[in-house]
């Protein structure tokens, strides 16, 4: 009985909700509030730290540009600091890596460009059995300069329990994922973590007199073209004087060639590809990927909408 009682010790945490704006302007500070509860029902803990984490694009360098504070009902208020990279969760990985392994990136794509940003309480606390507390954690972070959208994600846990599943997955830590969050009024075309990036264009900034490489990635998400060998570009270009130039025939000139990994790509000079007349300039192109017959079309986010590339320089 005693052994069972010791084993059953668990500090239960609950993530009741997260307040965040739906969107924020690039480069601006914004505030996130995590509403948490602690309920130590079956045993006490000493030298405990509360751990929180949130998802952010790596380009934000959020660990260095975030301040985290908390309020409690009985333990006073305090601040949180980044968990050192040398501190391992009980899975043997450091916290950002352990959270990525356990939760992934919450349904986002291009996961290597996102990270879990992990903070814990600056102080350690003793939490005897029977403690019930409300803990509100306030995160003030700075959005990066780029136009971005990603699905936000949050984690709540404790230093003593880590990612232990001894008591079932829902006792000692919690996670919560939300819908697409937008950073607007920033630089460049949208960096979209919310939708699969079937297509990518290099360079990110270009005019119609650059060489553009438009690539198709068959591994991001299964599409109607996943098993098709020869893929073609079907594109429309818009001129600044209101003309629409069409290039949608499946020919050698529109066929994608082998690119990196399983990707294929077409590298083209827009002025030549669309036969742009002297004095005309292109403002944007809309495009699909198709098969040789043109009957299969794959668009933005694997929908019937085209991908869009806007010509602009910094």
């Amino acid at each position: 009985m005693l052994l069972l009682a010791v084993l059953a010790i668990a500090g239960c945490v609950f993530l009741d909700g997260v307040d965040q704006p739906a969107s924020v302007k690039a480069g601006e500070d914004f505030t996130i509030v995590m509403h948490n509860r602690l309920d130590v029902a079956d045993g006490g803990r000493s030298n405990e730290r509360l751990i929180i984490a949130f998802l952010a694009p790596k380009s934000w360098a959020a660990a260095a540009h975030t301040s985290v504070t908390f309020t409690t009902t009985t333990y006073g208020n305090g601040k949180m600091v980044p968990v050192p990279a040398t501190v391992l969760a009980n899975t043997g990985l450091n916290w950002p890596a352990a959270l990525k392994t356990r939760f992934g990136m919450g349904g986002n794509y291009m996961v290597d460009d996102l990270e879990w940003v992990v903070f814990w309480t600056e102080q350690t606390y003793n939490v005897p059995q029977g403690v019930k507390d409300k803990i509100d954690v306030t995160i003030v972070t700075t959005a990066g300069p780029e136009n971005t959208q990603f699905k936000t994600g949050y984690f709540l846990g404790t230093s003593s329990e880590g990612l232990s599943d001894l008591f079932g997955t829902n006792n000692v830590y919690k996670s919560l994922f939300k819908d697409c969050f937008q950073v607007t009024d920033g630089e460049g075309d949208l960096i979209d973590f919310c939708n699969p990036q079937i297509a990518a264009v290099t360079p990110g900034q270009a005019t119609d007199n650059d060489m553009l490489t438009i690539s198709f990635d068959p591994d991001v998400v299964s599409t109607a073209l996943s098993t098709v060998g020869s893929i073609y570009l079907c594109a429309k270009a818009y001129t600044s004087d209101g003309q629409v130039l069409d290039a949608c025939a499946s020919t050698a000139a529109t066929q994608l060639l082998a690119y990196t990994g399983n990707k294929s790509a077409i590298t083209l000079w827009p002025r030549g590809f669309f036969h742009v007349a002297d004095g005309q300039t292109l403002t944007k192109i809309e495009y699909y990927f198709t098969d040789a017959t043109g009957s299969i079309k794959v668009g933005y986010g694997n929908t019937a909408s085209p991908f869009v590339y806007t010509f602009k320089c910094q």
Partner: protein
Amino acid sequence: MTTKNLFHRAGHLCIVLLLMLAGSCKQSEVVVAEAQKDISGDWRISKAVRNGIDITTLADFSQFRIHFTADNKYSLENPLPFVVSKDGSYSLDDPAYPFRLTFTPTGDSAVSTTFNYPVVNGARTIVFSFSPGCSSNTYLYTLQRVQP
């Protein structure tokens, strides 16, 4: 040419390095006369690099031609992004040291560009660096003379 003359010339070609007390180096070189450069003829793209990445095999660069005539005219065939997009005239600022080339497209203002003129596999190549679109995108074309 006498033996004495040969020694005399060899002496001129010596490069003298003076190690200064302050620790700095001073180098004096004897100027060797360069042969006049002649870039007339047809040139094709043998290598294309965009922002440091080789893109030669990603698109068809094989059809592009630039033809330089001995009387300082140039013409483009199957154009691609380049320093200029229309035919016109060209000039080298100093034919003996032609590392700046000025294109003057007919009816347009002149575009001056630096270029390299290295020997690769025994043949002269011209390397142009330019930004025909966004200034943040830089292209490096290596041109090879098309053998008639």
